[in-house]
């Protein structure tokens, strides 16, 4: 009995390592195949599904409760804080599968250490570097026109984390980002409805009994 106990860990660990490697390879291939299929549930997040929205709502609620304790009294700072919390929770719900979610999460860390003025000159320099070579392209394909390129750059600035990415990447990120934003709007408006609806109703429980007309 003791000898098997001693020998098992050695063989089991090798076997486990090999089987986990095989499982990882299988999972990688599976996700690669599934991500090419646009209707896959595993490769891309299903932002329209109800469970996804519930996951987001509960995480948002937790984060907002923490925020409430330590919030600043001025109004614009508060709404900005709520917005940042909502974006952060959205990125967490995305599980880091997309560039924009990873960019949101790393930006929070960067802002904690760097001041805002250090970011803006770097951003404008990157913008100038990007704008110059686009005009010199003379091919007349539709995607290489300066107008389309300019709009693609604007879109790249709107989606977090996509400033320097090529057009196909920007399009893919924008597709997921729009779906995520729509879910965010749905979840936050539902939350706002709950808060505004249950606030006054919670306090008027007792008067309702007296206001009801007597049954005749």
């Amino acid at each position, binding site marked *: 009995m003791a000898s098997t106990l001693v020998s098992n860990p050695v063989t089991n660990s090798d076997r486990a390592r090999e089987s986990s490697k095989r499982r990882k390879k299988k999972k990688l291939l599976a996700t690669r195949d599934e991500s090419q299929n646009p209707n896959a549930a595993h490769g891309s997040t299903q932002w329209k599904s109800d469970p996804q929205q519930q996951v987001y709502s509960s995480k948002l609620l937790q984060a907002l409760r923490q925020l409430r304790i330590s919030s600043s009294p001025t109004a614009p700072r508060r709404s900005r804080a*709520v917005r940042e919390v909502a974006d952060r929770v959205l990125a967490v719900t995305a599980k880091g599968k997309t560039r924009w979610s990873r960019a949101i999460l790393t930006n929070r860390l960067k802002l904690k250490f760097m001041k805002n003025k250090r970011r803006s000159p770097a951003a404008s320099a990157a913008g100038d570097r990007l704008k110059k070579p686009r005009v010199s392209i003379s091919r007349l394909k539709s995607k290489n026109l300066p107008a389309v390129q300019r709009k693609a750059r604007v879109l790249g600035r709107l989606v977090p984390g996509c400033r320097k990415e090529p057009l196909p990447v920007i399009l893919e990120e924008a597709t997921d980002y729009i779906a995520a934003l729509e879910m965010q709007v749905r979840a936050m408006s539902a939350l706002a409805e709950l808060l505004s609806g249950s606030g006054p109703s919670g306090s008027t429980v007792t008067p309702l009994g007296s206001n009801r007309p007597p049954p005749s």
Partner: protein
Amino acid sequence: MSSRRSRSRQSAGVSRTSDEQINDLVSKLQELLPELRRRRSDKVSAGRVLQETCNYIRNLHKEVDDLSERLSELLETTDSAQAAMIRTLLSQ
């Protein structure tokens, strides 16, 4: 090094991915936009899709901003409402 420079001179790596793939992505994006969903893809140019996408994302950002402002006000005033909210969320 020289390949990297020539690739950057071309329009941001379009030579790697085909036009067909880009058109595919553009049409997928068009499906999501509320403005352009009814029209057929051959009547809407890529530039128009990009423009509408930018507008739509800006709209969504503004909605989220308004909602977070509203939420921040509501969170400030209501306290016991949170218990009711948690109860409703858990019961769904």
